[in-house]
């Protein structure tokens, strides 16, 4: 473990603050061919729902300048299959494990959360911000009031700490973050993808069956950084930030904006070694700057 990068997120100890983002890293297995997953600060599961979901039909990926639009639609095996098939493997990896949970209505969120009480994950990331499913998902996350309500109910029944993942597509994020904090959330993560659209002018048709899709990657970084800063100013609970982080310098900017941990998403597709290179880059920065720990620059702007 690097003393420079060891990070506490409440009382959860991360060996470093770098975690691959939900949905860009499967359940981790695929990246084992590239490096030892125990080098990561943590792992975050693909977005899970109570029932298995087959996801959206039609085109699911569309590259944009410095960005990627996706319309996966939360394809996942469901909570039960996750607990049976993926969790036994995931829990053996010597790193913090985060389970990302989405839902279509209150009941499906709560039942999923109850089922997860059976396993020992360190943190649950409550996804109320997926722009790619029509029923629920983002519907909760775009208003402070509903975000607070679902958070309160989930916090009540979960034996795990809850980190709420916010949408950049709704009311002012700082207000939503405050509502989640007041409802008992123990952390905030942001941002999920920005809702966008693509049209094939030659075919005179929209690209995505689901009409709109989520934009991520380097293109969204300035927006993600601004929102991270706003949320970090607004709440006392720790923040796990993401959105377009592609190298250690980007990562450092988010830490300076106030983030405690970072998630690395789309850039994994460009460079599978990105999380490992970011960890190395942050450590070298600490050494070069004479920092005892990366937290010394947290929130300095």
């Amino acid at each position: 473990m690097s003393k420079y990068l060891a990070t506490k997120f409440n009382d959860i100890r991360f060996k470093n603050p770098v975690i691959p983002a939900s949905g860009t890293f499967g359940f981790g297995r695929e990246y084992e061919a590239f490096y030892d997953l125990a080098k990561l600060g943590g792992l975050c599961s693909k977005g899970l729902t109570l029932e298995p979901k087959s996801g959206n039909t039609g085109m699911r990926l569309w590259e944009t300048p410095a960005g990627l639009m996706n319309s996966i639609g939360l394809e996942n095996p469901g909570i039960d299959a996750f607990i049976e098939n993926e969790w036994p493997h995931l829990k053996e990896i010597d790193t913090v494990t985060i389970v990302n949970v989405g839902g279509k209505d209150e009941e499906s969120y709560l039942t999923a959360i109850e089922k997860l009480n059976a396993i020992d994950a360190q943190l649950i990331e409550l996804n109320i911000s997926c722009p790619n499913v029509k029923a629920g998902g983002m519907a909760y996350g775009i208003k402070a009031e509903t975000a607070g309500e679902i958070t309160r109910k989930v916090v009540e029944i979960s034996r795990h700490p809850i980190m709420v993942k916010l949408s950049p597509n709704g009311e002012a994020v700082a207000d939503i973050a405050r509502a989640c904090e007041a409802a008992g959330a123990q952390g905030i993560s942001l941002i999920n993808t920005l809702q966008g659209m693509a049209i094939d002018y030659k075919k005179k048709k929209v690209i995505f069956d689901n009409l709109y899709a989520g934009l991520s990657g380097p293109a969204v970084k300035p927006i993600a950084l601004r929102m991270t800063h706003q949320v970090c100013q607004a709440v006392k609970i720790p923040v796990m930030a993401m959105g377009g982080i592609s190298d250690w310098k980007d990562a450092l900017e988010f830490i300076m904006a106030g983030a405690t941990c970072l998630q690395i998403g789309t850039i994994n597709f460009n460079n599978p070694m990105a999380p490992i290179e970011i960890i190395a880059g942050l450590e070298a920065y600490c050494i070069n700057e004479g920092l005892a720990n990366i937290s010394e620059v947290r929130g300095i702007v």
Partner: protein
Amino acid sequence: MAVILSNTLVSAGIFKMTVAFTGAVKPGQFFMLRAWDKDPLLSRPISVHNYESGQLTFLYQVVGKGTEILARLQADDEVTIQGPYGNGFPEITGDLCVVGGGIGTAPLYYLVRHYQEQNPTGKCRVYLGFRDIAYGADAFAALADEVVLDVGGIITDKLTVLPGETVVTCGPEIMMAAVAGAVPAENTVYVSLEAHMACGIGACLGCTCETRSGNKKVCTDGPVFVREEVFNV
């Protein structure tokens, strides 16, 4: 990173790139190629056109930003290649009939070469369809027992499949669907699908296709599927 040995124009808009590579590579597998940093963002999936004595060859058509950059590379330049990925074609033992359309002929060359090595007495027939200019037909003719070439027409109009032949097709989806529909049910037909890909390794679920047995990932479960799985026949 792989060192480019050659990268040459073979026909209008069609390039052949050979790089140095060591490792096991099956016909029908692909690599994710990139010769840029973060712009464009994603790597490009390109099939293995041939693999012989440490030389890995890709045959590709310039269609957009990524393939344009690839086409500008020269010998001694470097290209990042991740792979080989995908299931590849199965080992074929009886007689073989391949049907390729346009740049979809790219993976079929290595398949035919490999088949001939494994089945010296097996019969291999090749159908090639192109919209306006044919390329690569001579290379197939040097290997196969028969090559039927079609330019500007519809390849299934010329296609007759013999009893016992295994059929492998790669090309535009409507061509593969037509082949899947035209070949008698007694013959096994394999198709090689395309999908936009981000990771190429099964992590993003961006390349999903619907099959009879549920969603499959083109990058890891495919790109090769048996026709009944993916086409309504």
